[in-house]
């Protein structure tokens, strides 16, 4: 096994990991692509040493490179391509919505984190309810809309 290939795979994995732990969605996409490359190279390496291309009528009896990992790798390339493009679209969308392409902390999780653990013993449901309303402005909108239609119907 070639140490050069191993290093390339290890390097791609490292940089990929470093990038997908970033805040910026475009860096995460970059990291994903690099990890994809590492995986494809890894597949190929695991399949055996290099050799002539597996084209039967041009081999003249010589042993070719292992074709099976290549077939698997093709699928991997295409799928990671699809994933990358979809993530790009998501990043674009996020950027249109917020002006940035940053990954925000999960609101639900942050609410759990911000809750005072001691205060919530018996009044757990209440504390939950109020904080949900505080965080979720959309809920207010819905309520307002309901009230509005209600008064309209009444009048």
């Amino acid at each position, binding site marked *: 096994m070639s140490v050069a290939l191993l290093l390339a795979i290890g390097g791609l994995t*490292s940089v990929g990991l470093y990038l997908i732990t970033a805040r910026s969605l475009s*860096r995460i996409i970059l990291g994903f692509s690099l990890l994809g490359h590492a995986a*494809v190279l890894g597949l190929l390496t695991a399949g055996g040493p290099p050799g002539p291309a597996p084209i039967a009528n041009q*081999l003249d009896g010589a042993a070719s490179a292992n074709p099976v990992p290549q077939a698997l790798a093709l699928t991997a390339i295409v799928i990671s391509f*699809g994933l990358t493009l979809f993530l790009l679209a998501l990043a*674009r969308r996020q950027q249109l919505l917020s002006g940035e392409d940053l990954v925000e902390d999960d609101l639900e999780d942050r609410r*759990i984190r911000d809750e005072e653990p001691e205060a919530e013993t018996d009044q757990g449901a209440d504390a939950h309810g109020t904080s949900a309303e505080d965080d979720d402005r959309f809920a207010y909108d819905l309520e307002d809309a309901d009230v509005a239609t209600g008064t309209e119907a009444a009048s």
Partner: protein
Amino acid sequence: MLPFFGRTSILWAMFSSSAFWVIGVAHVLGIAGAAMLGQRSIRRGLAVGALAPAVAALWAIGRLLQDDAANDPIVSELTWVSGLDLSLRFQLDALATMMTVLVSGIGAMVFVYAIGYFGPKAKGGGRFSASLLAFSTSMLGLVWADSVWTLFIFWELTSVTSFLLVGHKNTDGAVLAAARRALMITGGGGLALLAGLLVLARESGTTVLSDLGPVAGTPAVWAAVLILLGAATKSAQLPFHVWLPGAMAAPTPVSAYLHSATMVKAGVLLVAVVGSSFADVTTWKALGMAFGTASMIWGAVGALRHRDAKLILAWGTISQLGLLITLLSIGTGKAIFAGISLLFAHALFKAALFLVVGEIDIRTGTREIDELHGLARSMPITFGVAVLAGLSMAGVPPLLGFTAKEAAIEAVLGTSGWERWPALIGVIGGAVLTVAYTLRFLLTVFGSTPAPHADLRDDDAPAVADTRVAPRRLAMTVPAVILSGLGLLGYIFIGAVNSIVGPAATELNEKSSVYELIAWPGIKLAFVISMLVVASGAVLGVLASRHTQAAPQPLGADGADRFLDGTLRMARHITYRVQHGSLPVYVATMGATAALAASPFLFALEADHLVLWDTPIQAVLALGVIGAAIMGAFVNSRLGAALTLGAVGLGVSGLFVVHGAPDLVLTQLLVETIVVVGFVVGLGHLGQRFPRSSNIWRNVRLGVAALGGIAVMAALAAASANPSGQPPIADVTEAAVEIGGGNNVVNVVLTDVRGLDTLGEVVVLATVALGILALANARVSGPSDTSGGSAESNGVASDPKGVTT
């Protein structure tokens, strides 16, 4: 006698062979029917719910009359994973048939009773009827179960359905706390039971309950302790009994059914069924008797202390269950027979007593014995029921409870060795207290004696007037009359009872077959003890009914609640630490964990199969790829990052060329071009620099990245050092040409061998394209002006409120 059910009746034979599944399906359909019909009117839901248990009970009685139960047990198995011994296995032997009569018979009566208990306009009828029938179904599954898996599944199902039923009044915080306590204690015991059953199954070499052999040694002790823990939690044995008084928050039909007659018997039944395996394990007997005798005494004391009629019965149940556990863990033929007889008798009289209390509750509006006076006059039928059932509980002739208790005293007298004295003291002491609390119950609820603290009351009437009573409801009276009447009939026709409990006990212990219940034993030691017990208990009971004390504190229940609250608080603390909401930290944590998990590969490394490079150009390309990747990580503009991504893609394509993979090269080049273009088009106009992260976090990320890279390299190198064989390259090539008819082997593999996968790939790409289209066309309602008014922001910024107005 029954020509339709005659022994030779083909109809009966046909029904019997498939009845097992018919009854199961009938129950499941009944749950759905009860849920739907009960939604409109609770009475209809309950009436439908009563059908399936009634059929099951009649069928079981039919089997008992035919002697099929003992001679011809029905076994039914539904294998899930045969290699793992995972199957739903049921066996309907004599014991299971007897339990079916109790579970389904009392179940059907409770359904009828509930029609009277709930007014016609009660809410939540669908939920209640369906839950009650779901419980009945689970309980049937539990008594029929013949494999450890089946037993455990239905055991837990009874816990869950019991939770739903106890918490039926789901707007009351105290009720919900009680339901939660019951679920947590019985559910926790269920986990101990599972562990114990697994140990038992492994030691005994089978998961089939009826095939379990004797076990011994340290694992057997563990199994004994764990299984007894499960039984003690379910059967509310000290110190796990705290959930049972709380569960009295349930509607009384539920308490009558679950908390006296059936569910709490599950633990007793478990001790009976697996007890023979532990015949040689002293821990089993000692721990079982410790649970049993302690609960017997403490439960009876509790019944003497409480002033709520329903709680008196609940504590009495704890005591009676203790007696059953004691007898069954003694395990001799005589004790097993006495235990099973008492189990039968107890189900009848205790269910009847609960029905009485429920009726009193509904018709007078209270269950406090201080507020109930002279019901003997105003509720004569209920009084009669209570006397019959109560005296059966106290063990007074001529009632079934008397013969069963006689058998129990005989069994304890018949023991030898260390268990004799603890058992004697427990059983006789418990029996005296039982007579006492029964008498106190009857006197204080039905008697017209003025309340002892009458002078403290506001109204200055010296003798308290009888409690006002609402009119009788037939649906409540009939089941109570039947159940208590059976106690008397059982004594008169003692032979019939013997033919039910005898085979059931023999199923558990062959030596039980020689014993039978005797209506009138004559003046023997057990009888003398029994009469002394009744006499001293009566004195104690009369004294206790005159004596007033404040309602006792719920000892232990608050402790259980504190423990549960503490557990929840701890869970919240852990969540608060672990679930912080930051995606990068989650990813880093997962990456580091995966990398550390790969560390064993470091020890499997070998250097001799490694070469520096396959061709020098490979080394150059590899260096280029690494360099471009690192540049991509540290370049500060998005455009630059996109370009380095392209460079990495090119380098990887070059590596494919070296490796001999032309198809990959072509695909990679095409893909890479589109990705770079997409990057530039999609995000390039952002143009800003990447946000900077803190130095500490940066170092953590670098550490995780280094770990991950090392782990992948180590795993690959170690894996290639130990190949499992040579790849069949020549065979694949030959097959591609001859079968696939193509020279490009990779293409043949993709289209011929994994054609479906390739189709799936196409579907994925099409889905991605659709998703991108949807995202691109979606309207933007956020701060769209920050995007600089670029051509992409073609979505019309619209205010969601604008739509509603």
